[in-house]
């Protein structure tokens, strides 16, 4: 099989819906982040530490690139060499994009990262053997590896601090990969409660930790299958479709006046996070 042949028959290799190519039945969790509302304040990232038992690695390990922040705020300056960045900075909250055709999944030798029926990209710690192929293959660089056994490392969780750990989330040991889960523990709880009452999870019933903290409500999260959910409406309004590697609106002449986009869409990973472009006033 030649590479060109493989590219021509791409659809046979990359599935929009990895489970038998069947569309999501009840849930497809997705997010949208309004970069015009995001102020880069870091509330989301600290909330993530609190919710997901993330270890604080300290300065030296941070320097070695071993920080464990599942969510980070990337900061960019304009690159046109003006004297001052007089239109401010660009902030971008970046976490696992829960790709529908996730590049990390195909390279895992242990099957430790999979797609769930709800459209999440799962990471199973007890299956992970620490090959780190997934991280190497992730275009967003949002996977974090436990180089050390943080539970037994000094000053990560000294005695009292362990009391704060979220019992719904496993504390990871040495040698496993981890990443944003879209707060799956909250999703599962909401689904569990809904199922007991014989219904589906309602829009707004479940929030991710970052979304709940965000002081400007820049983050929306919900079920893309439910057309009345805020996220589904946002995606629809912005004409961003999950299963495309380039959106129709961008192909029209003169480009689009809508601000929805996904990062590295051209890589055909079909991320579940839509960003809305930051806007600056043209009159000043």
């Amino acid at each position, binding site marked *: 099989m030649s590479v060109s042949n493989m590219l021509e028959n791409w659809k046979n290799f990359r599935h929009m819906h990895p489970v038998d190519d069947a569309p999501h039945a009840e849930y497809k969790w997705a997010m949208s982040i309004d970069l015009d509302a995001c102020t880069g304040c870091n509330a989301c990232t600290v909330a993530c530490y609190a919710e997901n038992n993330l270890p604080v690695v300290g300065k030296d390990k941070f320097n070695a690139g071993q920080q464990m922040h599942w969510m980070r705020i990337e900061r960019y300056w304009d690159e046109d060499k003006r004297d001052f960045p007089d239109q401010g900075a660009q902030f971008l909250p970046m976490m696992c994009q829960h790709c529908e055709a996730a590049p990390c999944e195909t390279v895992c030798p242990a099957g430790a990262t*999979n797609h*769930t029926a709800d459209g999440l990209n799962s990471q199973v710690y007890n299956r992970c053997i620490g090959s780190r192929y997934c991280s190497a293959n992730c275009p967003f660089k949002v996977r974090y590896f436990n180089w050390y056994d943080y539970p037994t490392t000094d000053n990560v969780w000294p005695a009292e601090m362990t009391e704060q750990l979220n019992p*719904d989330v496993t504390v990871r040991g040495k040698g496993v990969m981890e990443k944003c889960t879209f707060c*799956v523990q909250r999703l*599962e709880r909401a689904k569990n409660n809904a199922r007991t009452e014989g219904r589906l999870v309602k829009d707004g019933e479940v929030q991710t930790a970052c979304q709940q903290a965000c002081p400007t409500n820049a983050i929306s999260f919900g079920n893309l299958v439910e057309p009345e959910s805020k996220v589904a409406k946002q995606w629809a309004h912005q004409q961003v479709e999950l299963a495309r590697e380039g959106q129709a609106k961008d192909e029209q002449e003169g480009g689009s006046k809508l601000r929805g986009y996904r990062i590295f869409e051209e890589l055909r990973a079909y991320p579940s996070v839509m960003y809305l472009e930051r806007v600056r006033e043209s009159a000043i």
Partner: protein
Amino acid sequence: MHRLLSLFILLAGIFANASVHAADAPPSITTADDLGPVIEQPIEFPHNRHAGLHNPADDADPSKPATGGMEINCMYCHTYARRSMVSGIPPLRKCIGCHQSLPSVRETPRIKKLFEYWDAQKAIPWKKVHDLPDFVRFNHERHIQRFVFAQGKPVQEACGYCHGDVKTMTVARRQKPLSMGWCVSCHEKDHPVDATGTKTSHGPNDCWQCHK
């Protein structure tokens, strides 16, 4: 290219097969091997006396000690099972609540011990019998809601799927392997989801249901 690819697939297949055999020998539901160890508890709690079936012969002479059980619902003591991940160990007050008005057994050795704990206002340090690794999150509520409330199965049967025939035991002892392969052996089968049994589905099989 093609041949190389098929070789790879072949190798991967062998590898995968081997690992399947190593980890998941066909699950056997109750064999002697799966029996957990006998665990010494602070008080030999007689599950059979509380949850066991009533013996009609006992009714003949109430002055004689009963030989059967009292058919107490499991959830009378393990009260959180239907609404939480965990079933809960009953608080001591629950035991005392009944036993303070049961003078007939008040002087038996086990009840004496129970009241010693009560007088000292100390919790009984029960040993955990059905232990799972810390990265496994079994949800009691889901199973009870489905089997007992949606499907109308008797409580003792539903609990018994995982905990074995507790109503015949004194101190509870693990009867099922509680391994992942054993869980999956049930999850992959189609089961009726309602009381009529017309609609069926299998349990969820994505990893994040239990590992998160």
